[in-house]
């Protein structure tokens, strides 16, 4: 087992090195994303600022909690952009073009290879900016953050980053079975867009069912923030863990079945 982990770490190191070398072949390609991603993030903050300067409260949360929420969702999204988004996003094209063949014939997990072959250092500033927002939000709230709360927050953050990844895999594995997943990607985009602006506590009834259980973007930043605020209950924790485990199972099932179902485009 240790040997396997060591080998995967070595492969990861080599993938990162290759990606950096690849990006550095073109100076604009390397420096451009830092500027573009940073600008997009700034625009997003301006929108949030405009919205929340006119709204006092959402549910039981005020300005400080919302800053914390926005920072946390941005952090999850930024980690996604840095580590796996660009790799995972290529899966449908690889299935349709038959390029998946090359990944399936290598003695390494094809999902690991695809996920990590296109890391994006251009989004690292977003991670840093998100951390700044989280720190600012915590200060604005003036709450005392204990070690336990911080640890809980970080653990939920890891779970939710993985859940975000799993949602991307599920949606992008659809072309193993059907011709196109374009509409599902639009649905994903709309869900993320909404849940990035509204915390999970704002949803009720059918919307809560949708964004807590079916497209669980509603819990992604909400649960870590609730932990940090001391609003986490056993029921919420069990729900969060259950969703995480169910989606992990679904992802593994869909991916493994998909690989077996793969028919490969003709040469």
């Amino acid at each position, binding site marked *: 087992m240790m040997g396997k982990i060591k080998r995967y770490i070595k492969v990861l190191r080599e993938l990162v090195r*290759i990606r950096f070398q690849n990006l550095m072949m073109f100076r604009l390609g390397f420096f451009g994303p830092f500027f573009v991603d940073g600008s997009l993030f700034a625009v997003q903050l301006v929108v949030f600022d405009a919205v929340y300067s006119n709204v006092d409260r959402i549910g039981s949360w005020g300005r400080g909690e919302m800053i914390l929420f926005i920072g946390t969702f941005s952090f999850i999204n930024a980690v996604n952009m840095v580590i796996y988004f660009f790799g995972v996003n290529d899966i449908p094209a690889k299935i349709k073009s038959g390029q998946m063949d090359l990944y399936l*014939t290598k*003695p*390494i997990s094809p999902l690991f290879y695809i996920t990590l072959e296109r890391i994006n250092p251009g989004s690292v500033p977003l991670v840093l900016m998100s951390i700044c927002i989280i720190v600012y939000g915590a200060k604005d709230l003036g709450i005392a953050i204990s070690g336990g709360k911080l640890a809980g927050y970080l653990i939920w953050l890891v779970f939710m980053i993985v859940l975000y990844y799993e949602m991307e895999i599920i949606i992008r594995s659809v072309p193993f079975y059907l011709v196109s997943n374009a509409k599902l990607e639009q649905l994903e985009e709309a869900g993320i867009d909404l849940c990035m602006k509204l915390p999970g506590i704002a949803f009720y009834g059918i919307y809560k069912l949708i964004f807590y259980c079916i497209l669980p973007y509603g819990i992604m930043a909400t649960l870590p923030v609730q932990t940090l605020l001391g609003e986490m209950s056993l029921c919420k924790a069990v729900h969060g863990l259950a969703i995480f485990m169910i989606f992990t199972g679904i992802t593994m099932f869909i991916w493994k079945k998909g690989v077996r179902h793969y028919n490969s485009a003709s*040469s």
Partner: protein
Amino acid sequence: MNIIETKNLTKTYRRFIKPEGLRGSIKSLWNREYVEKTAIKDFDFTMEEGELIGLIGPNGAGKTTLTKMFTGIIAPTSGEINVLGYYPNDLRNQFKKQYAVVMGQKSQLFYELTVNDTLRLFKEIYGLEERQFQASKAYFTELFEVKDLMDVQVRTLSLGERMKMELIAALLHSPKILFLDEPTIGLDAIAAGQIRRFLSEVNRDRKTSIILTSHYMEDIKALCSRCLVLSHGSKLYDGGTGELFERYRRNKKITVTFSIRADGIELPSYVQILKKTPDKLILQVPKERAGGILSELMHYSPVDVTVEEDEIGVVVERIYREELEETQEKNHGTKEKKAISDADGGVWE
């Protein structure tokens, strides 16, 4: 020892049939029609360690499908398959470490980087020790004569150079079997010839078993002592490449140039005149009679004589056509026999 064994291997694809026009499209929203296309049908095959086998067949014959089943990329619909003791579609890493696949139309190199960069990644993926990696790289760069190209951006390489690099990347971990799907596609005669020479050496020196899929009969003829002819998913021929060509290369083309006018030459009826000018004759003769015709022609003191084999394209066409006809006849015969035996059975009952 057999390293590949298949029995009744079959692969069937399902194809959606859309009725013509808008009405057909609307109808297909509710009621979809599919037809099954059998890419490989009841395929029995064994391959021994160290063999170099050629797979030939027209487009859609099932060559690539077969290679994809051997490598586990796709799963068979039915039948048995065993490659190096594994069921390929289990996609076990231990199995994948023992073979390599090169697809002429799919590159595994990073275009913007150098081959050395890609090889470093493959070293880690295959878990090679540094010493083993360096030794293998040195061997292949020398064999393929590409030492100077290892630090050049892949996208600046010619097609022939790139194919050599693809082969190095594939062979780096010393696979037991190498699957090659159209490795010489698009290459000029010199580059294709070099690739053939290298493959021959790899097979001989490294004892790497090779399955070569190609449309170019020159590849098969130059490299493979055994070949398989596929058509419509069925095996038409499995045997010696030399025998196959011997069987289907039936004519010789004789070009004779004379110093005098060649009007008065009388030729037997079995000789086909392809072209005739006052001082030149181009003839097609059954190969067993070529010697006799040549000695006849010598009486007219020719200044130049060229004897050529049947063109390879003609031979390939003949192989596909006649082998298919033969198989169909056999199947027809079997069906007739079966019908008679069924009828007999009916009588007995």
